[in-house]
C-alpha cells in the first residue's frame, strides 16, 4: 500500500516550484521589457488621447480604417491608441479592452462594436467616465442602448442596407433576371450583415426568377467562406469579401470558375484583384479609411466641446471590371 501512496502522491518539490515561479516572473519581465522598449512614449506628451477599438486587426477592412484614423490623428495633433480583440466575434474581450483603456484616462473613444447589444454596457462605462463615444461601422442596438441609457456623440458608417440593395440590383441585371442565389451571411444578429441581407432581399424580391436557394453564415471569415460554400456550391453574393474570396476558391476547386457569379461586399484589395481577374463579378465598396478618419475627427471635435453630426453616412459604390 505504501507503494501506491508513493506513486499517487509524488514527492515534494517546493524548491523547484519556487524556482519555477522566479523563472516565470523572469520570462514575463523579459517579454514586458521588450514591450516597454517597443511602445514609444505615447503617454507623456500631454496631448489628448483617443482610443480606437476595432473588431479585429486581421482584416484589410479594419487595417484601412486604422490607417484613416491614424492620418486624422496626426493631422489633428492627438495621440491614437488602436486595440482589438484576437477574434472579431469576441465581444467579452472587446469589452475588457474598453474597460482597460478607460483606466488609462483616455479622452475619447471610437468603437466598432463586435456586438450591437453586447458592448452597450461598455459604452455606459465610457459615459460614466465622461468621455465622448463615436460608434463606427456597426450601429448599437437602439433598444438595448436606450434601455441602458447609453449615449453616443456620433455614428459613422456605410449605409449597409443600401449596399445590399446595390448588390441585389447588380445580380438581377447581370443575370438577366434569372438566377439561383446562395448567400453567405455574416454573424447572425450582427447589425451590418443583417442590414445588407435585408437590402439584398428587398432588391430581388420583385424579380420572381431570382431565387435565394441557400443562405448560411460563414461568420465573416475566409476559410469558413470556402467550407460553407463548398458545401452549398450552387450563384451568389456574400455579405463580405473575405467570405466571397473563400467562396471563389471553393468554386475554383470545383472547376466551376466563370459559371457562378460572386458578388462581395467591402471591395478589399484581394477582391479588386479578383474582379480584374474576372473570378469575382462585383463588390460593393465601402470606404473604411474614410470612416476611420471621420470618426477620429468627430471624436476630437466632441472632446473639444464642439458640435458633431450625429449620423455620418460614408459613401458606398459598386466596383465591377473596368
Amino acid at each position, binding site marked *: 500500500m505504501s507503494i*501506491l501512496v508513493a506513486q499517487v502522491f509524488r514527492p515534494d518539490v517546493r524548491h523547484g516550484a519556487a524556482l*519555477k515561479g522566479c523563472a516565470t516572473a523572469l520570462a514575463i519581465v523579459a517579454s*514586458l521589457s521588450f514591450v516597454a522598449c517597443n511602445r514609444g512614449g505615447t503617454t507623456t506628451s500631454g496631448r489628448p488621447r483617443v482610443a480606437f477599438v476595432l473588431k479585429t486587426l486581421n482584416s484589410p477592412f479594419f487595417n484601412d480604417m486604422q490607417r484613416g484614423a491614424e492620418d486624422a490623428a496626426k493631422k489633428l495633433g492627438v495621440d491614437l491608441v*488602436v486595440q482589438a480583440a484576437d477574434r472579431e466575434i469576441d465581444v467579452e474581450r472587446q469589452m*475588457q479592452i474598453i474597460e482597460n483603456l478607460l483606466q488609462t484616462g483616455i479622452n475619447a473613444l471610437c468603437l466598432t462594436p463586435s456586438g450591437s447589444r453586447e458592448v452597450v454596457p461598455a459604452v455606459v462605462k465610457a459615459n460614466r467616465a465622461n468621455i465622448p463615444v463615436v460608434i463606427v461601422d456597426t450601429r448599437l442596438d437602439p433598444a438595448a442602448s436606450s434601455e441602458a441609457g447609453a449615449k453616443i456623440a456620433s455614428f459613422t458608417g456605410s449605409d449597409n442596407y443600401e449596399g445590399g440593395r446595390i448588390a441585389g440590383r447588380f445580380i438581377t441585371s447581370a443575370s438577366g433576371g434569372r438566377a439561383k442565389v446562395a448567400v453567405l451571411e455574416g454573424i447572425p444578429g450582427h447589425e451590418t450583415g443583417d442590414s445588407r441581407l435585408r437590402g439584398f432581399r428587398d432588391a430581388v424580391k420583385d424579380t420572381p426568377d431570382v431565387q435565394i436557394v441557400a443562405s448560411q453564415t460563414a461568420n465573416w471569415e475566409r476559410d469558413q467562406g470556402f467550407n460553407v460554400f463548398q458545401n452549398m456550391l450552387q450563384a451568389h453574393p456574400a455579405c463580405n469579401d473575405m467570405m466571397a474570396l473563400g467562396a471563389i476558391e471553393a468554386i475554383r476547386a470545383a472547376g466551376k470558375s466563370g459559371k457562378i457569379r460572386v458578388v462581395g461586399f467591402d471591395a478589399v484589395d484581394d477582391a479588386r484583384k479578383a474582379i480584374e481577374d474576372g473570378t469575382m463579378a462585383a463588390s460593393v465598396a465601402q470606404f473604411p479609411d474614410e470612416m476611420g478618419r471621420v470618426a477620429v475627427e468627430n471624436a476630437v471635435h466632441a472632446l473639444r466641446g464642439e458640435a458633431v453630426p450625429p449620423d455620418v453616412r460614408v459613401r458606398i459604390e459598386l466596383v465591377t471590371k473596368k
Partner: protein
Amino acid sequence: MLTAASQARRQAEGQARGQTGIQARAGLRFRGAGRRFGTLAGLVGLCLLLWILTPHFLTVANALNVMEQTSINAIVAVGMTYVIVSGGIDLSVGSLLALSGVVLAEALKSGWPAPFAVAASFGVGAAAGLANGLGIALGRLPPFIMTLGMMSVARGAALLVTDGRPVSGFSSGFRSLATGHVLGVPSPIVFTLAIYAAAALVLSRTRFGRYVYGIGGNEEATRLSGVEVRFHKTIVYGVSGLTSAIAALLLTARLNSAQPIAGINYELDAIAATVIGGTSLTGGEGSLGGTIVGALIMGVLRNGLNLLGVSSFLQQLVIGAVIIAAVLVDLMLKEKRG
C-alpha cells in the same frame, strides 16, 4: 475469495486514511503551497513591473477591474483544474458555456423565474459534463476525443436553440448578478472567491478530492485499492460542466446577452491558467490556489498590455510566450528530479 478481496479493500482504504495517507496529504498541501508561492512570485513580479511602467496599473479601480475581468476564465478554470488533476482534459468548456448561456437566456426570455432558469442552465451544463464523463469512464474514449466531440455537439446545440442569434435584454435585477457590488466589491469577484473556497475545500479535504488526485496520479493503482474510479471520473467532468454554466451565468449578466458563439477558445485560456498555476498536464498534482494565480497572471498581462497601449498582435505573442515559458520550466524541473 470474496472475503479476502473485501478485506484487502478495507485494508487499503484504512491505509489510505491512515498514517501514510495523512503524510501524503500533508506533503501535497505543502507542495501546493510551494507551487502557489512560486506562481505567486511570478504574479507579484509582473505587478511590480507594470507598476513601474504605467501609473494606471496600481489603482484600486484597476485592481478591481482586473479581478472582475479574470473572474469568468477563473471560474471555468476550476472545473478544468479538477479535470486536469484527474489526468484528463476538457476541450468542451467554451461550448458548454455557450450552451448553458443560451439555455439560461431562452428560459428567462420565455418568462421563467430567474432561479428556475438558472437551475435549468446549471442542469444542462452539468448533464453535458456528465455525458463527457460517461463517454470517458464507461466508453473508454480518450478525454481529448470525447470532449472534442462534445465541443462541437454543444456548440451546434447552442446555435440550433437560438438559430445562431444572440439572445439579449434581461431585467436589471438579473444583470446586477454581474454588475452589482457587495460592500464595494464587484459581485463577479465575490462569486469567484466563494466558488474557489468551496472547490478548494472539496479538492483538498474530502475523500472525493483525494480520489481525484489518486486517479490522476495512478489510475490503475487507485482502482485496485478499491476506489470506484469510473464513478468519480464521471463526476469530475460533471463539475467542469457545472463551472462552465456558472461562468455562463456571469457572462450573460455582464453582456446583457447570451451568444451561441460565446466562449470560443475559452478552453485554451482555462488550460493556460491551470498549467501556469502549476497543475501538471499529466495529472495527479496541482491546486486551485495555483490556478487562481495563473488566471490572474493572464488577466493582469492582458490588462497591463492594454494599459501600455501595446499592439494587439504583440499581446498575443507575449501571452503565448509566457505560457510556454511557464510549462517549459515546469518540465525542466521534473526532468531534474527524475
